[in-house]
């Protein structure tokens, strides 16, 4: 085999690694299902059906994938910038709260004003929450993993407080049940549904027969498109702008960056600021596109759906590349949506899905070792074969090996 072919094969293996990790996780899941007296084949069939079986299922998968993608692209920025943001949960919550508070305070605003304002507010709130951890890291030397974990808890209690007091639906105050949730947000704040547009595209392509299931009744909203657009923009930002280049430089080698005149501390803050902002936006989109109100019923997890953590996995899965994060988010969205169906079909606790996802996380981070080892081999191959790979890419390879 020629060296360049080995190179390509190695790249392919790199991309397949996460998929392999998922397969192994699912196999372990199958063993657990057997131990719980459930038929794994029927269970995984249900999982697939639940995630992709109908247009409605696909829509649900995409809706679930949306916050994962937004959190995930934020994670791409922070990890590339050398900071580990575990605070997606808290950042989503404050983002959701900001959007909720703004929408409730402007009941008469027009949709064209209200929706962008709410989304900007949610981004800003998440950015502040992430920025706190950034400032703490850059100027007070506080480990960001710990501070973001703590800020998650603070945001959770803050949300519970606001739901029970300041923002509670006035009707709930007098109701006997007294559910800690806000009033429904004004209708103009609802993110437009995109099922109708999809159907017209299908019709135009001649795919949308009268009997075929239609997209229109699905709950698919424009937030999904917003997330994909931002994923592309973040890619451009990280690889095609000076600011993005500097963030990556700081992440790769802070000392060298400092010598090169980059103000490392500012870029650390910026990484967490942006990362938090996208998580905040994920929270805002959850409120405007799915829930249409904020609720503390079922705890914070009922609102975030653990997307703050799962978004990290999606990003890792996508090799910390915003575009790779798109399919990775869909995969995890599918696992979550299909998992619900699996759980209902074979009657196993939903905690099984948490276990499966945790196994995927563990396998993905663990398989990094082989990726790194192969990257190092690639350097050797590239160095031995200057003709096949121009000097520029060899330097990049070298960079990756570190």
């Amino acid at each position, binding site marked *: 085999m020629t060296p360049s072919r080995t190179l390509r094969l190695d790249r392919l293996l790199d991309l397949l690694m996460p998929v392999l990790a998922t397969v192994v996780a699912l196999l372990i899941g199958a063993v657990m299902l057997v131990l719980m007296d459930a038929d794994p084949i029927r269970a995984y069939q249900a999982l697939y059906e639940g995630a992709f079986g109908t247009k409605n299922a696909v829509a649900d998968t995409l809706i679930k994938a949306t916050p994962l993608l937004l959190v995930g692209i934020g994670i791409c920025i922070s990890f590339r910038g050398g900071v580990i943001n*575990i605070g997606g949960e808290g950042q989503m919550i404050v983002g959701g709260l900001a959007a909720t508070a703004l929408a409730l305070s402007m009941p008469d605003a027009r949709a064209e004003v209200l929706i962008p304002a709410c989304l900007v507010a949610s981004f800003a709130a998440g950015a502040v929450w992430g920025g706190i951890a950034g400032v703490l890291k850059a100027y007070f030397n506080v480990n960001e993993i710990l501070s973001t974990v703590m800020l998650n*808890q*603070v945001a959770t209690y803050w949300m519970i407080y606001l739901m029970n*007091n300041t923002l509670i639906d006035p009707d709930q105050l007098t109701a006997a049940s007294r559910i800690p949730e806000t009033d429904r947000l004004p209708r103009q704040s609802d993110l437009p549904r995109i099922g109708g547009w999809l159907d017209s595209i299908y019709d135009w392509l001649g795919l949308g027969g009268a009997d075929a299931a239609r997209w229109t009744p699905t709950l698919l909203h424009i937030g999904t498109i917003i997330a994909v657009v931002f994923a592309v923009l973040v890619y451009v930002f990280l690889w095609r702008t000076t600011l993005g280049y500097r963030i990556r430089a700081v992440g790769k080698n802070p000392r060298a960056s400092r010598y090169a005149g980059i103000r490392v501390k500012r870029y650390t803050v910026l990484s967490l600021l942006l990362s938090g902002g996208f998580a905040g936006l994920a929270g805002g989109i959850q409120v405007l596109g799915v829930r249409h109100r904020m609720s503390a019923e079922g705890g914070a997890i009922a609102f975030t759906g653990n997307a703050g953590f799962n978004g990290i996995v999606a990003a890792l899965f996508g090799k910390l590349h915003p575009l790779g994060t798109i399919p990775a988010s869909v995969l995890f969205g599918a696992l979550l949506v299909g998992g619900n169906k699996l759980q209902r079909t074979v009657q196993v606790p939903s*905690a099984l899905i*948490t276990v499966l996802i*945790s196994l995927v996380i563990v396998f993905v*981070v663990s398989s990094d*070792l082989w990726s790194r080892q192969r990257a190092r081999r690639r350097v050797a191959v590239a160095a031995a074969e200057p003709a096949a790979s121009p000097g520029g890419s060899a330097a990049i390879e070298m960079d990756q090996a570190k």
Partner: protein
Amino acid sequence: MIDQLLDSSVLIGIAASGIRLATPYLYAAIGETFGQRSGVLNLGVEGIMLMGAFSGFWAVYHTGSLLAGVLIALLAGLLMGLGTAFINVTLKAEQGISGIGIYLFGLGLSDLLFQQSFDSVVTVNGFPRIHVPVLSRIPVLGEIFFQHNLLVYIAFGLVPVAWFVLNRTTLGLKIRAVGQNPQAADAMGISVARVRYFTVILGAMLAAIAGASLSIALLNVFQQNMTAGQGFIAVALVYFGSWRPFGVMAGALLFSTVNALQLWVRTKGIDIPAEYASMAPYLLTILALVLASQRVDQPAALTKPFERGE
């Protein structure tokens, strides 16, 4: 509220429950200290605590034996520790992320096993309070210090032991060398991997006892996610205590006392909203981390996997 707080019986009660509540933090944070001193950040403590809490509870429920509960919890900790060490040491995973994976694994699996093995909420007879002869009858001090269950005493006994092991034994020297300069330690013939496996597994076993101290001593029930963030706080306490057992103990006590105070405020239902009171420990952690970070004695190789010949 202030004059209520200054009532001596209230103060004694808060101090005593502060000591009791410090127990899980102590086990988990002392265990984590060993891991971090050798250069491994195990962020999965929370998940391991949950596994320890469940398995200890399960064993006590089925056998009625507290010893069995502790042993089974230790076993669960050993297995979780083995897995954690394999992922972080052998496979050299990014420790911040693998920790979240281990946390979610423990969170999910403990819940899953609980739902599979119990139909309804049950309680067990956990560790009884021991009134230490003579000492427990000292006014004020007796009530604060000498009327706790066995696991509380062991937790506090662990602190000087950990200090001694880390600072006065060859093993401790090896652990510190591996955490400070693994290349040099390796050159001296110390197996970096073996030392890290040891500390991570030890840490996980202590974390499992931390969980069990909740389920079979402090609360005597198991609930999904019953640790509620205590494992993460324990990790932060290690930073706060500057990787020193007595510093960690001071942090744990500060924390649990704030917690006890917070619980008292909640029962009184006065002035401060309960949610803000619950927030206090976390805000305090952040503040504590700011203060602790001024000192720079973090193990140099913390979170860095060891590669020979770098």
